[in-house]
């Protein structure tokens, strides 16, 4: 009787089964993969830091009783009416087009109930969002889809977008199935085409031009509203300095964990730097210019929990901004039996879906289909947004009190320790049990 040959599966780090599958998929598809969400691979993040809360050498505040201020005022550097937030957590720009009107409405409702802001996106301002959002930041993007002076004058701040964490250097994408008549009208595009936004602004090129562009927007709005500049985190130290020189009142730095509704997978996974590095570099830049706390810093990209918020603030951010986690709060990737088939139709399952680009969102959020959109009740979803923001705020406060802080903005780097050598090096925070980090 012939002996069966043993099956040998020798590990191949360069071409593991997943890589073989991807190459064969690329050979079938003939173009890059486009998907939603942010970077999925494990990268250094705020989980690699821990708080050195009070003990004998530090005195805590009562966790549930003593006041811990969360009010935050930003953007008054050049005399504009500053943005007054009740909490240092805002909602990031997500376009009408990638999201439906119901989702934009819900985000506005939840944000307003918590006294914070939302941000438009690459599709312009919808009436629903302006009505629901007590504080609305209006984006001026390379595409200029829907950008107009009337809406700019209705905004509470203007955010010039140079890039975002999911795709610094790349423009937006919205596939044809989501270019509905309303979206097409707002963006001045034919219905149903695969839309690819410009990645560079049409009327200015570098930081010297940006000075003049910011002045133009101040002229338009009579200097009344703060001007934000948003960048995807890459060379964050230099970029933040250039934004300051250009005249930004607020700088938004979006790390590589930042999400999107549709971008090439190769951008999402292989561009930008982790938010942990970005916040440290941005703060250093501001400090070196003597503009720390004068030009305000908003950090975004993979902020999920109150602990993330607290750590970002401890590292020097004034505010954090949240995008994809807000959608998750509203129901994205929720595991409901009645949605199981919808996930399966997309070839995925609850907890694993990243198919925002299809317009078939099982949660009714990242779709323009009127029937699917009915799944999202703006009132209920708005309440979820509010509750999520409330949870983050309570976590933030409780951590701050445990560090002995009566104001969340008093959190400082000294309250933190790094759990890994990488995080210590990236954040320039001492490794636990030491007073050292690489490079010190």
């Amino acid at each position, binding site marked *: 009787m012939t002996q069966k040959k043993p099956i040998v599966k020798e590990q191949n780090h360069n071409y593991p089964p997943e890589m073989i599958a991807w190459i064969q998929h690329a050979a079938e598809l003939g173009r890059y993969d486009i998907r939603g969400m942010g970077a999925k691979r494990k990268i250094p993040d705020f989980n690699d830091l821990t708080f050195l809360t009070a003990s004998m050498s530090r005195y805590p505040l009562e966790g549930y009783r003593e006041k811990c201020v969360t009010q935050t005022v930003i953007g008054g550097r050049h005399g504009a009416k500053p943005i007054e937030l009740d909490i240092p957590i805002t909602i990031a720009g997500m376009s009408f087009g990638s999201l439906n009107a119901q989702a934009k409405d819900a985000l506005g409702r939840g944000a307003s109930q918590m006294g914070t802001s939302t941000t438009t996106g690459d599709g312009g301002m919808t009436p629903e969002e302006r009505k629901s959002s007590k504080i609305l930041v209006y984006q001026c993007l390379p*595409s200029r889809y829907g950008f*107009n002076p009337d809406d700019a004058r209705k905004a509470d701040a203007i955010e010039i977008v140079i890039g975002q964490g999911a795709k610094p250097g790349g423009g937006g994408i919205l596939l044809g199935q989501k270019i509905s008549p309303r979206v097409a009208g707002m963006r001045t595009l*034919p219905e149903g085409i*695969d839309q690819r936004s410009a990645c560079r602004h*049409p*009327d200015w090129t570098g930081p010297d031009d940006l000075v*003049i*562009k910011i*002045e*133009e927007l101040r002229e338009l709005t009579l200097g009344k509203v703060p001007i934000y500049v948003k960048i995807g985190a890459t060379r964050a130290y230099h970029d933040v300095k250039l934004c300051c020189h250009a005249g930004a009142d607020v700088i938004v730095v979006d790390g590589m964990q930042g999400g999107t509704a549709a971008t090439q997978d190769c951008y999402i996974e292989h561009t930008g730097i982790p938010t942990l590095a970005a916040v440290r570099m941005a703060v250093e830049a501001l400090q070196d210019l003597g503009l720390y706390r004068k030009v305000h810093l908003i950090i975004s990209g993979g902020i999920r929990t109150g602990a993330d918020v607290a750590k970002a603030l401890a590292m020097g951010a004034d505010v954090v901004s949240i995008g994809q986690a807000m959608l998750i709060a509203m129901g994205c990737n929720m595991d409901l039996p009645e949605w199981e088939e919808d996930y399966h139709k997309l070839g995925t399952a609850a907890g694993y879906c990243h198919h925002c680009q299809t317009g078939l969102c099982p949660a009714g959020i990242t779709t323009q289909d009127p029937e699917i959109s009915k799944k999202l009740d703006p009132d209920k979803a708005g309440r979820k947004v509010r509750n999520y923001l409330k949870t983050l705020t309570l976590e933030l406060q409780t951590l701050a009190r445990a560090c002995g802080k009566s104001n969340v903005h008093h959190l400082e780097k000294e309250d933190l320790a790094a759990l890994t050598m990488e995080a210590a090096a990236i954040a320039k925070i001492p490794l636990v049990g030491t007073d050292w980090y690489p490079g010190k």
Partner: protein
Amino acid sequence: MVQIDCSPLTTSEINKKLRELPEGSEVELLNPAGRHNLAVGLEKKIDLTINGHGGYYYGGMNKNAEITINGNAGPGVAENMMSGRVRVKGHASTSAGASGHGGLLVIEKDTSLRCGISLKGSDIVVRGCVGNMCAFMAQAGNILIGGDAGQALGDSLYEAVIYLGGKYKSLGADAKEDSMTDEDITIIKDMLSRAGFNDLKPENFKKIISAKTLYHFDSEKKQDY
């Protein structure tokens, strides 16, 4: 006629004076001296003449005003214009008429790179020549060029239409020449009339439009990105 001497005033003071003028005013700005951001975001129908060369963004986001620049214009003249008319008697710099939604931009001499980039419905008439990347990603509106065009004319066009009186150095990705129709002749006549270039002959123009091969991803086709 109201005259405003720009010399002793800040840009904001000048723009404030312009905004406060009643509808129908005729106004002249003297000594702009190339400063930036004059006549930005006007909303009223006024007749404004700027006597001198301009900096960046003159007539930016204009609504209703009729603006004439008696000189050259800097980058981004009439950018994001919503309605009204901007006329440049001299040359215009880069990104003239960028992302304009409505109204008419007239340039009596030449303009530079990226004229009409990201256009969203304005009409642009350039009597002279345009530089490279004219009408890049132009989505809607018409661009009429009396002279020649540089490289990559109409690169990544959407639905905007280019009428060219001279020659182009090269066409951009997905741009193609198309045959003229009676409707095109009518459009050209109208644009020339509004611009005051009635000596130019509509039949001498060629039409460039999007070939629309990049509207959808298609791995079976050789898509020229």
